[in-house]
């Protein structure tokens, strides 16, 4: 089966071709573009999907690849900047997820955009193509710099697609907000990239071939040297001298800097505020970018360089706490939302919180597992919401829906499948993955890292809220009696909407079966396929990217030790909480005419409606703190700095005037000056050289 890995560059390049086709043909010959660019996009993503699956199969036979494709700058004795591909089990899994969801979203767009008669379709499909290209290239990136570049590019695509309806008022503003907030995080990420280069001299994730180094491995060597084993790499030792910090401290700083980008992109507290606004974008875009893939980029990045993070217990604890807090915090806000996509947006934030929680608590496999299941069930829920929105003539308010169950059975059953997965009801996908995250958090927390128990508690509590808002959403949308005229007579949807829903619906129900830890534990069967998949090979350079290695790092560097707790009781607890939440929602909102119970919450409702005043405080931070600070800086700048600059420039203008006076146009003056200059040089060097 060798050969698939040679086609890896084709995976991102195919959507890039469709981007070019949509862009150029859309501009010069719109008539020639079938379906406004949808067909090239579908063909390209289908091609990517085929190659991705092929690569996946090849990887499953133990063939990995990490090689440079294009060297941008190779300076001897300094670091080189290059593009390369790295495909290991994690990347192969992610490639399949991204290309599959991208393919389905392209198909769905036929129904959501083309059938609804939207204008500017070539712009839309060009954006989708560029996004798919960037995301796939990000996934296969073999070094941090390349990852950063494509990380930025997906951010740009997100901006372009959120603001697709740029003539309306909301979308451009939401696009700007998304861009600025994620950029704030990326600013730290960029410094982190530079810091990695400066510290290690390389930004590769894995070292293959002669003389190559990988920064996670160098960090491991450095920390081992601090502990008295082996020697510290000279480059690192030199740089640590420059910074004047211990290896542990400095690496933690670097890890936190990179984490800034992750928090922005994966919408973690406190940089999550852009994601709900991003729902202004077309719904297929929300499904692809703001649920299944781009938002996953942050989490994927942490997983990609897990060999680095696993060395740093402080950073891991921060990741776990941020994740747990975000999971709970976002889930409570999702409880009171009235618009379908808003509920889903907060649930997305919350679910990525779980993944961060998983990564922070050492559950590398659990987090990757949740990344996988969440991509499918959340894309499903968004596409289902898109289908409902088509039916409701673009009214998103759940209080105007109701009773859609009978009118759109396909959407209903697939949406239900996704909801059961989201709420974490056995045996749907989300149950297995979320439960595994919580289980890992519990055993490591009960081991030697009690701080993880706080994160665990938050994650566990969030399960209840998740069950509640999910079923509130399902009941309000699909059950009861229609509460408006459009809900009485919804707009039909065609195959191009139903097909993606069915594919994802089946996946949402079944994909959890690939890693049923509690069942494996109970029966002793070896059915933890994902665990085996990510464990990594032995004895090659790639073993540094496998879970076995990470586990070793977690134990010897981060001091994580698993307590011996069987998975059944925690699983039962979280299932009970999920069912409790779901049941409460059912109790409160079922019936033909549900009432708005949110009124009873009183002050808490206002707080929740206003999203804990997150936006307000960030605006206040911008206006109340940053602006006066900037004013102060401006005053300082105007007064002191400009004073100095003005002085310098008046000196330089004066001296410039002098130079001009010297440069007076009279050639004999020049000859004099030239000769005097020469004599001065001769005298200085003659006297110091002792020539006379």
């Amino acid at each position, binding site marked *: 089966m060798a050969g698939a890995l040679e086609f890896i560059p084709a995976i991102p390049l195919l959507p890039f071709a469709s981007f070019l086709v949509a862009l150029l043909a859309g501009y010069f010959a719109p008539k020639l573009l079938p379906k406004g660019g949808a067909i090239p996009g579908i063909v390209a993503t289908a091609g990517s999907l085929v190659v991705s699956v092929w690569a996946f199969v090849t990887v499953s036979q133990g063939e990995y690849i990490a090689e440079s494709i294009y060297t941008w*700058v190779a300076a001897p004795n300094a670091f080189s900047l290059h593009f390369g591909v790295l495909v290991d089990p994690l990347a192969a899994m992610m490639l399949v997820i991204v290309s599959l969801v991208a393919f389905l979203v392209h198909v769905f767009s036929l129904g959501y955009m083309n059938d609804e008669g939207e204008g500017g379709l070539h712009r839309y499909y060009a954006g989708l193509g560029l996004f798919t290209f960037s995301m796939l290239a990000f996934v296969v990136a073999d070094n941090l710099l390349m990852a950063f570049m494509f990380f930025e590019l997906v951010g740009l695509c997100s901006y372009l697609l959120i603001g697709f309806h740029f003539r309306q008022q909301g979308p451009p503003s939401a696009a700007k907000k998304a861009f600025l907030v994620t950029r704030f995080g990326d600013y730290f990420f960029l410094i982190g990239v530079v810091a990695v280069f400066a510290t290690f001299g390389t930004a590769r994730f894995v070292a293959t071939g002669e003389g190559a180094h990988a920064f996670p491995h160098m960090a491991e060597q450095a920390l081992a040297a601090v502990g008295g084993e082996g020697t510290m790499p000279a480059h690192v030792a030199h740089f640590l001298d420059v910074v004047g910090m211990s290896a542990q401290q400095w690496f933690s700083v670097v890890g936190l800097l990179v984490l800034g980008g992750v928090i922005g992109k994966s919408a973690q507290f406190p940089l999550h505020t852009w994601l709900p606004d991003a729902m202004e974008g077309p719904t297929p875009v929300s499904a692809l970018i703001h649920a299944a893939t781009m938002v996953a980029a942050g989490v994927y990045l942490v997983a990609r360089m897990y060999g680095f993070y696993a060395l740093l217990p402080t950073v891991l604890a921060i990741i776990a706490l941020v994740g747990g807090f975000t999971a709970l915090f976002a889930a409570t806000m999702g409880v009171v939302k009235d618009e379908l996509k808003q509920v889903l947006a907060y649930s997305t934030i919350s679910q990525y919180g779980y993944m961060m929680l998983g990564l922070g608590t050492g559950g590398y496999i659990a987090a990757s597992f949740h990344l996988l299941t969440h991509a499918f069930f959340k894309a499903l829920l968004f596409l289902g919401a898109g289908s409902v929105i088509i039916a409701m003539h673009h009214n998103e308010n759940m209080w105007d829906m109701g009773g859609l169950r009978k009118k759109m059975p396909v959407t209903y059953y697939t949406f239900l499948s996704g909801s059961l997965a989201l709420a974490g009801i056995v045996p749907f996908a989300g149950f297995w993955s979320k439960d595994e995250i919580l289980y890992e958090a519990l055993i490591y927390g009960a081991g030697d890292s009690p701080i993880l128990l706080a994160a665990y508690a938050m994650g566990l509590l969030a399960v209840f809220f998740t069950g509640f808002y999910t079923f509130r959403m399902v009941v309000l949308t699909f059950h009861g009696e229609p509460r408006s005229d459009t809900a009485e007579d919804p707009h039909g949807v065609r195959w191009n909407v139903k097909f993606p829903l069915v594919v994802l619906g089946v996946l949402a129900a079944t994909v959890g079966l690939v890693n049923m830890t509690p069942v494996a534990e109970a029966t002793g069967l070896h059915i933890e396929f994902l665990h085996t998949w990510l464990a990594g090979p032995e004895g090659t350079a790639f073993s540094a990217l496998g879970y076995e290695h990470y586990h070793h790092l977690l134990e010897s560097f981060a001091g994580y030790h698993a307590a011996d707790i069987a998975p059944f009781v925690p699983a039962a607890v979280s299932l009970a909480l999920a069912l409790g939440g779901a049941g409460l929602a059912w109790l409160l909102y079922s019936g033909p005419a549900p009432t708005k119970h949110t009124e009873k919450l009183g002050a808490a409702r206002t707080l929740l409606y206003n999203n804990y005043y997150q936006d307000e405080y960030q605006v206040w931070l911008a206006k109340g703190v940053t602006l006066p600070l900037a004013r102060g800086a401006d005053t300082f700048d105007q007064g002191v700095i400009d004073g100095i600059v003005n002085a310098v420039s008046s000196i330089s203008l004066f001296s410039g005037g002098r130079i001009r006076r010297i440069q007076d146009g009279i050639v004999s003056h020049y000859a004099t000056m030239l000769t005097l200059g020469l004599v001065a040089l001769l005298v200085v*060097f003659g006297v110091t*050289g*002792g020539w006379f």
Partner: protein
Amino acid sequence: MTELPPLTPQFVLVAAALLVFGVDTLLPDRDNNTLLAGIATAGTLLAAGTAAWFLSAGTGDAQFVQFDGAIIVDALSLFFVVVVGSVGTLVVMASHDYLDDADSVAEFYALTLLAATGMTLMAAANSLVTVFISLELASLPSYVLVSYLKRDRGSIEAGLKYFLIGALSSGVMLYGISLVYAATGVMGLPAIADTITAGTDFVGVLGLGIVMLVAGFAFKTASVPFHFWAPEAYEGAPAPVSAFISSASKAAGFAVLFRVFTTAFPLDVIAGTVIDWSLLFAALAVVTMTLGNFAAATQENVKRMLAYSSVGHAGYVLIGLAALQSGGGAQNSLVLGASMMHLLVYGFMNTGAFLFVALAEYWDVGRTFEDYNGLSKRAPVACVAMTVFMFSLAGLPVGAGFLSKYVLFAGAVQSGFAWLAGIAAINSALSLFYYSRVVKALWIEDPRDDLSLSGQPTGLYVAVLAAAVGTIALLVAFDPVAQTATHAADVLFAG
């Protein structure tokens, strides 16, 4: 299988010059501008192409000694043939439109080709005699080219000043050569090194000779305090000629400077006994870049600003010599190679900038920053190109100027000259100020009401765009250039 002679590029240039003369003699009455420009373009392009081919085929790996050691062909000389040839191509293409209504265009092309021959020979000169002769071969046609617009007072005045300062500098240099000869008794560069290694009694005479040689090269590269001619000559000359002199002639000056000082006066031999010339060049570098950038910041006239910025860039390139160390090894190759990279990139971006000025002169829009206001409304494509040149010259990553400056400064830091790199970085930041003034005028200011551009200068447009494409392409494909330049420096040090 026959082999081409190593000096093929030079032969091609001479042949093209003779062909231009021949065509003009045989067909004196016809309007031959296009034909002649075509011949000249073909000649320069072929020379650059041959040199590039030689380089990629590995001809430069060894040193081909020609004419009993008077001339040498190696990676360094071929590299600079590429620089001179590509700048020459751009300039000749642009001149076609610039000279549309001029008389005697044949002389212009022929002189350009002959000057280019001189510059390529400078890069290959391996004896003080050939150094001097090739320098004069490059200089004399340049004087005539600067005063080519013989009914324009500015052009004539500039040419005369250039000639007078040039004559003085040549005299100083010739005197320096004679002193070096007096102290060593030989003219060949390797032979001089051997004599000095064996020991010389005339340390003072040798030292005086070396400093005077520096004066000659500093004139050619427009380094302070031998730069006085530069602003005047660049401003008065026809803009394509300014482009040619400020890019190609400067590059050739550096080529010969690099070879003479690394071959004839190796630092590890001479630094302890006669003169530590890296210190001398460090001083020149600091003064040159500071003065060039400060003076550029106060100019009103775009062409004059570019002239001073050209002085400033000479200062950056001097870092390549200033940061050499005795026994530096790979670091020496890196920093000297970085200077060569910068000269190649500079060849594109600076030529492009001057050719944009030529375009502006062709349209008759005026010479100051204000006159350029709002040009982007009328000529957006050319203005995009000019923006690329300006930002690339300032060292922003829209063009290869970013990378070459980066490698140069990084090389200086690695060699332990962080202070020099620091001064260069401050200067570079200052330069952003005056370069962005041009960009601001082009894009942000409103045009005058009566601004209208007439004429379709195809050749000029093509040359400007080609320079812009080159500047950007080098950013993407910088690695081969970097490898070649570092390799050329390796060959130079090994020889």
